[in-house]
Each structure stands twice: as structure tokens, then as C-alpha cells.
């Protein structure tokens, strides 16, 4: 019994010897704490993969059912804005990776610069997305009766065998997927407000920067979702449009 006590006491002493103000009492050291955080974030991201996966599944099944309607509706999206947003997000992933790099190497100033740059780029993405949504509103392409008194209406000619309902299905999926993606971006920006606040206080050091690291994982995941959304939503029927002449 006495021995048991001694061991516990020694363990506590060892814990204290390496103690860092950010080290939670249930971890042996910062390394273990950091790895546990990374793994926890990945478990969350796996859940996100399944979450978005369900929407990609719905997309695939309906596109398989209504291929012409999906190509027609997709060609109505503004591919220039979509491509611009793809570039904006990839640049923001680079700046986020650099923010993590400067947290790891202990440069508070550069860490702040790149976190803020990432926020500016994230906001740019949302503004461009907003412009696209407004265009859809203007063209009566908000599906169902989500906008009261402004139901979905396809003003152009309908291709043979395609109904307005089939086109509307594309826009349901478009808004569900890009809307959920945009929501993730907004949450990501909120997380970055928190990071900037604590980075300014000098909380993140080469020894402890797990919050920056795992927020980076989240941000890159949101980028990956867009990497798939861009070709699947914006580009699926472009070759038909250009092959016609």
C-alpha cells in the first residue's frame, strides 16, 4: 500500500517537473496531449466525411437519374466565380498552413499575419458565394418556395425529356451542399477569431500550439470538400456546351 502511494507520488512529481501551464493534468506530457488532440480532431473529421458523404451520395443518384437536367442546370452556374472561389480557398489553405508553421516556429507576428490573411480570404469566398446566391435569387432559381412569393421557375427552354422539377432537384442539391459548406466556412472564421485573440496574447508557442494545428485540420477539410464540389457542381456539363459547335 505504501509502495503504491510512493509510485503515485513519484508520478505526480514527474508530471510537475515537466509541467507547462497548458498541460492538462490527465496527460503525461505535452506530446501526448498534442497527439490526443490531433486524433480527436480526425475522429470528428471522419464524422464530417460521412456527413458530406451522404450529400455526395444523393447528388450521384439524382445526377444518374436526370443526367441531361443536371448538365443543363449546372451550365447555368457562373463557372468564373466558382473557379475564382476554388483558387481563393486553395490560397487560404496555404496561408493557414503557414499560420501553423509560424506557430510551430514561434513567430507571433507572422502567425497573426497569416491567420488574418486566411480570414480575409475566407470572407472573400463567402462574399463571392453571396453574389452567386443573389444571381440565383434574381433568376428565380431558389428551389421550392424557400423564398415566399418567389417559387422556382426555369425561364429558358427545357431540353427534350427534362421537366422543371428535374432542374429544381439540381438546385436543391446545389444549395444544400454549398450552403452546408458555407456554414462550415463561417464556423471556421469564428474559430479563427478565437485563435487571433489568443495568438495576440502570445498563448501559442513551439511547445504548445495544438489549437492552431487542429483548427488548421478543420480548415483544410473544408477546402477538400470544395475541391470535390467545384467540378461536380460547376463543370459537369461544360464539355457538352462547347462540343456543340
Amino acid at each position: 500500500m505504501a509502495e503504491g502511494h510512493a509510485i503515485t507520488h513519484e508520478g505526480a512529481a514527474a508530471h510537475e517537473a515537466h509541467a507547462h501551464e497548458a498541460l492538462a493534468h490527465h496527460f503525461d506530457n505535452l506530446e501526448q496531449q498534442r497527439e490526443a488532440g490531433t486524433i480527436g480532431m480526425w475522429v470528428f473529421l471522419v464524422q464530417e466525411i460521412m456527413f458530406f458523404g451522404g450529400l455526395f451520395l444523393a447528388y450521384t443518384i439524382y445526377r444518374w437519374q436526370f443526367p441531361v437536367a443536371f448538365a443543363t442546370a449546372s451550365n447555368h452556374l457562373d463557372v468564373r466565380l466558382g473557379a475564382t472561389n476554388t483558387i481563393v480557398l486553395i490560397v487560404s489553405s496555404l496561408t493557414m498552413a503557414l499560420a501553423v508553421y509560424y506557430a510551430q516556429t514561434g513567430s507571433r507576428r507572422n502567425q497573426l499575419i497569416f491567420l488574418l490573411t486566411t480570414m480575409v480570404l475566407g470572407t472573400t469566398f463567402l462574399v463571392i458565394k453571396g453574389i452567386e446566391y443573389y444571381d440565383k435569387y434574381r433568376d428565380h432559381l431558389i428551389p421550392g418556395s424557400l423564398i415566399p412569393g418567389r417559387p422556382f421557375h426555369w425561364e429558358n427552354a427545357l431540353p427534350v425529356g427534362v421537366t422543371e422539377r428535374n432542374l429544381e432537384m439540381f438546385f436543391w442539391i446545389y444549395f444544400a451542399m454549398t450552403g452546408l459548406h458555407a456554414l462550415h466556412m463561417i464556423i471556421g472564421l469564428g474559430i479563427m477569431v478565437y485563435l487571433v485573440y489568443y495568438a495576440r496574447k502570445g498563448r501559442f508557442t513551439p511547445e504548445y500550439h495544438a489549437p492552431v494545428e487542429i483548427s488548421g485540420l478543420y480548415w483544410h477539410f473544408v477546402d477538400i470538400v470544395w475541391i470535390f464540389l467545384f467540378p461536380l457542381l460547376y463543370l459537369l456539363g461544360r464539355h457538352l456546351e462547347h462540343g456543340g459547335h
Partner: protein
Amino acid sequence: MSEHIVSKKVYFVIFGALIAGTLLTYYVALQDLDFIFHGANTVVALTIAVTKATLVVLYFMHVRYSTRLTWVIVAAGIFWLMIMFALTFSDYFSRGWVSYPR
């Protein structure tokens, strides 16, 4: 295992590859590849997207330098996604293959 710091050079190289992939995706989407087989455009677009996503996961998300346990978790996520797709498609795409008396 202590933390591996990925160099800035690696980040810039991956960034260049991602931008190149995006431009390639756009360029290829304008070409009609249906002469190869029907739906070739989608296969090419998804191949590029999977390549880009893999680069982001391995380098920006540091999985290449992470522990085995992280690898297992990432692989499990992709594996379960494939189960979801395979089982659902096997249902939808096989409907109407067989006729049965009513």
C-alpha cells in the same frame, strides 16, 4: 515521436500542384472526352480531385508525418464512405434488372 515541422518549401510546392490541378480541371472540363467512353469527363475530373485531396491530407494536414493511429482513423473514414456508396449504388443501379411477376 516528436512533432515534425513541414518546411515552407514543401507547402509552396504542394500549393503550386493544387493550383495546377485546378487549372487542369477547368481546361479538361471544356474538352469533350465522350469519344473515349461515355462519362470520361467525370472520371478525369474526379481523378484530379482525389489527387488534390490526397496532397492536402498528406502535407497540409500532416498525415504523412503523423502516427499510425492517425493513418488508421483516416483510412477507416474513407473505407466506411466507400461502404456507404457501394451498398447504396448496388441497390439503386440494379433496380429494374430483373422482372418479377406482380
